[in-house]
């Protein structure tokens, strides 16, 4: 509890984050928050931007190769109730998508970064297919696009000291997989939904 409070406050202070909800409200219904990814703080930021009751039911999905290294990171990942996914060894019978869906069950929401890794600068990379399979297997989940602005300046890839500038987290209107929508169309539409939040005043 205390660790959660300290880390959340620290992340908020360092990133000066302001939170906006556009055509969307915080809710405890089951959701998949998908966001662009530029810094290690992203996971903590989105998680701490959610109201406490929603936060309790939300599990960030994070890379095992980063968050499982060293006791401190493992401890932090535990504080955030993170699901650690192995990016290196993806087994056929144990796909990360199945694992995630099993973990969230019928109550929890999750935070994912569909680019599959941090991007350099302001660009938003192509989305990996995980989001599509999530939507296909559980079509009733609300998919909420999230755009994180300016974090690439707060803590760019390859740096370990954050510069406490001001960043902004924007939650957008939920979307779903349309009937008969192809994988590529859906992933492009999802990426555009994130990019559109960048333009919103």
């Amino acid at each position: 509890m205390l660790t959660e409070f300290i880390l959340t406050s620290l992340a908020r202070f360092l990133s000066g984050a302001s939170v906006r909800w556009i055509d969307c409200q915080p809710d405890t219904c089951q959701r998949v928050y998908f966001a662009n990814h530029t810094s290690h703080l992203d996971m903590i930021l989105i998680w701490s931007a959610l109201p406490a009751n929603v936060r309790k039911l939300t599990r960030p999905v994070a890379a095992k190769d980063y968050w499982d290294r060293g006791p401190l990171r493992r401890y932090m990942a535990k504080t955030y109730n993170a699901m650690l996914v192995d990016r290196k060894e993806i087994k056929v019978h144990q796909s990360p998508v199945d694992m995630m869906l099993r973990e969230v069950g019928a109550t929890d929401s999750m935070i994912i970064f569909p680019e599959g890794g941090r991007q350099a600068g302001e660009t938003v990379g192509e989305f990996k297919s995980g989001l599509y399979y999530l939507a296909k297997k559980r079509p009733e989940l609300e998919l909420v696009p999230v755009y994180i602005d300016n974090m690439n300046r707060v803590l760019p890839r390859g740096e370990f000291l954050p510069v406490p500038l001001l960043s902004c987290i924007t939650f957008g209107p939920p979307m779903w997989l349309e009937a008969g929508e192809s994988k590529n169309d859906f992933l492009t539409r999802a990426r555009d939904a994130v990019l559109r939040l960048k333009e919103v005043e």
Partner: protein
Amino acid sequence: MLRDWLLVTVVVALLGTATAVGQIVQRQPHLGLNAAALATFNRRVRVWWIFYALLLVAFFSPTLTVAIFGLMSFEALREFITLTPTRRADHRALFWTLVFFTPFQYIIVGYNYYELFSIFIPVYAFLFIPARVAIAGDYKRFLERVAKIQSGLLICVYCLSFAPALLYLNFQLGDGVDRHAASPNDKARLLFFFITMALLSEAFQFIWSQLYGRHVISPTINAARTWEGLVGGSASTALAGMLLHWATPYPLLWQSAFMAMVIAIMGFAGAMTMSAIKRDRGVRDYGTLVEGHGGVLDRIDAICFAAPVFYHITRHLLGVG
């Protein structure tokens, strides 16, 4: 002591009246007043309350006042840098600027190391920044990038830090046998005078511009600033400075008027400079840049430019050496 209570009473009475009027008028839509102007007025009154709460702190704890000004600088600087595009290679220079130079400047102000805090940023920080950016190895628009970081640090941190530094100015009061060192309350009153004149000059310039403004100084930068506003506003501020002479440490009446005028003119210069930067970046207020952040820089631009000049002229007039 009596003087301080008098000040508190007058300020609370005036601000209370302004708040009451603003709130009452807001609940009377049939009067047909400009709703936007009224909202601006109420917002301004709130800002005044915040500044006077801060000044009240100055009467009790100079250290706490320095810390609060330090936080204001930090917030203003991060607004400034967020608004200014920087490149990836500036990261380390920005880190040192925000995490080291900013707090350190306020620490040395708090210890009153005048010899150091008056040159620390313009010498050491200003030489460090270009060197650090150069080491990072990106030469594209080098001078421009360095200048951006330096300007932010100079305006938001160095200049503003001279306002709380007034609380540590060791001047003498009275003359002849009566001559004695200034008490902490005398110094707090000096800061009170400075902030009050800065806030008043903004209000006076606005009112004069609204009533008599004909000749806009620079329409491309700020369409609301007129010559009538500047001249009328500065003269009114000088008059207000004379009325507050009893609260200042200046021996002569004209010195209070002169210092008030200096604050008005420097405040004007600060507001124009910030307008130019905002115009260049295509925003109206720093506050709207990031929702939920108060736009600290919008509120302190006038104070930033006036503070170091006010500090140094006061130092000279009061013969601090």
